[in-house]
């Protein structure tokens, strides 16, 4: 379930984050933030430090939304 974006991190006050909920997918998050689920690679690329597969995200993961 997609909800409101989380408060920005302290080290970069303008970085936007989202904490993954049960049932989320990158395409669903992309549709919420960008209006277009096909833009999910943008989120995947911004989170390569913690994601190795765009189809594998876990609840509780804090993703950066560029």
């Amino acid at each position: 379930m997609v909800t409101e974006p989380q408060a920005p991190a302290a080290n970069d006050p303008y970085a936007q984050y989202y904490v993954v909920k049960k049932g989320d997918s990158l395409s669903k998050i992309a549709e919420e933030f960008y209006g277009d689920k096909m833009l999910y690679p943008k989120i995947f690329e911004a989170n390569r430090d913690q994601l190795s597969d765009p189809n594998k995200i876990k609840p509780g993961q804090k993703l950066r939304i560029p």
Partner: protein
Amino acid sequence: MRSLNARWIFVAVALLAVACANQKEPAEKALAQLDSVVASVRDDAARYAADELQGVEASLSGLKEKFGKGDYKAVLAEAPKLTAAVDSLKSTVAQKKSEAEAAMAAATTEWNALSADVPRMVDAIQSRVDILSKSSKLPKNVSKEAFDAAKSGLESMKATWSEASAAFAAGDATTAVAKAHSVRQQGNDVLQQLGMKTG
């Protein structure tokens, strides 16, 4: 009798000449000293106390004119008043210069913080605008009007930030800080238009 009068006149003129000669040197010294002190403070005074400097310059010019006419007595009589005015001018310049330097130091410190913050804000907005520009449709919380406003707002932010950076490079930290605040305020509006959280 006529010879006696002529002698007295000669004596009086001689005494007057001696008196004048006695006053010329101190008057000359007083003027030179005033001239020197005014010269030493002139550049700063022109920047920090222009009106006061103008008054002092006018008085100094008047004294020089009197000296040129041989009115040394008047020069000596008026020199202390002008000396006091010059001292006051020096004091005003020192105070205003100190205030300006403190303001510049504070503005420089503030600029350092802003110059780390504002570019990150611009980058975050630019990134989101670039992505939304590729989107087949906008997210629910961003209208087309808001997106268009955000795009033009971003361009305005970048232009104003360039002006701020140029002002700081030119040594005008106060203007740079004012412009940087303007960019940040506009950035907060743009972040809202894009449905993003502000810093």
